[in-house]
């Protein structure tokens, strides 16, 4: 019988690094896109596209790692067990839904952002606003804007749940990597967690 205070590795170092680089780049992307709208004037574009490319690389690495080194189903698949108390695997239903919402916002932002590089120009890609029709640029920009608006909503909700006292063990695990079996027990099936499901 395992000790309740025994620590379980929840997030490997590389995954924590991925999470916090994503957090910093998202903060930079939202600040550089939204502060000018709120009247704060500065040269935002260079920081925005560099942060966007860093986010793109990080997300690609995360997807490769999740597909080949981890069990992507533990985060992506939603089953009947997710609706039963104490039976969640590594991730609870709200955690899976939060990840799904972030995946939608970030992937739409990345794809549309990469397309918009052509319109605005960057040092390695010549600006060509005539590469697409105005209507097409409008739709791409609309999707990019909606991803940003969804991100504003998600940042608030994600940070709130991260700092709630009863959820703080998850935040600590995202800093140190570890969580105790006692902290997992109220919501997780420890056998599933040990299998990595």
């Amino acid at each position, binding site marked *: 019988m395992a000790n309740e205070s025994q620590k379980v590795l929840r997030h490997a170092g590389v995954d924590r690094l991925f999470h916090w680089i994503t957090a910093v780049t998202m903060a930079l992307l939202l600040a550089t896109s939204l502060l000018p*709208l709120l009247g704060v004037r500065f040269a935002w574009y260079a920081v925005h596209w560099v942060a966007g490319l860093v986010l793109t690389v990080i997300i690609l690495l995360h997807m490769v790692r999740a597909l080949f080194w981890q069990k992507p189903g533990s985060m992506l698949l939603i089953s009947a067990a997710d609706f039963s108390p104490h039976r969640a695997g590594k991730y609870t239903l709200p955690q899976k839904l939060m990840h799904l919402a972030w995946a939608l916002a970030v992937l739409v932002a990345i794809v549309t952002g990469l397309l918009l590089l052509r319109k605005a120009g960057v040092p390695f890609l010549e600006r060509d606003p005539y590469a697409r029709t105005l209507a097409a640029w*409008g739709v791409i920009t*609309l999707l990019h804007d*909606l991803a940003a*608006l969804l991100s504003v*909503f998600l940042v*608030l909700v994600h940070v709130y749940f991260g700092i709630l006292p009863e959820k703080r063990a998850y935040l600590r695990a995202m800093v140190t990597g570890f969580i105790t079996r006692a902290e997992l027990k109220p919501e997780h099936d420890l056998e599933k967690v040990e299998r990595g499901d």
Partner: protein
Amino acid sequence: MNLLRFGHDAYGAQVVNGASWDLLPVAFWAGVAVIVGHLIYRALRRGAADKDRG
């Protein structure tokens, strides 16, 4: 409140330019609403649990 930003093409036809920035406060307050809603739910659930314990 507008949902979209519009512009005009070279022929004067109206085209979508993106989402209206009127939606920025909506996204912000929607997040705040979820937080407040959860805080109320959490307080009610704790109250019920305290009552059950007597």
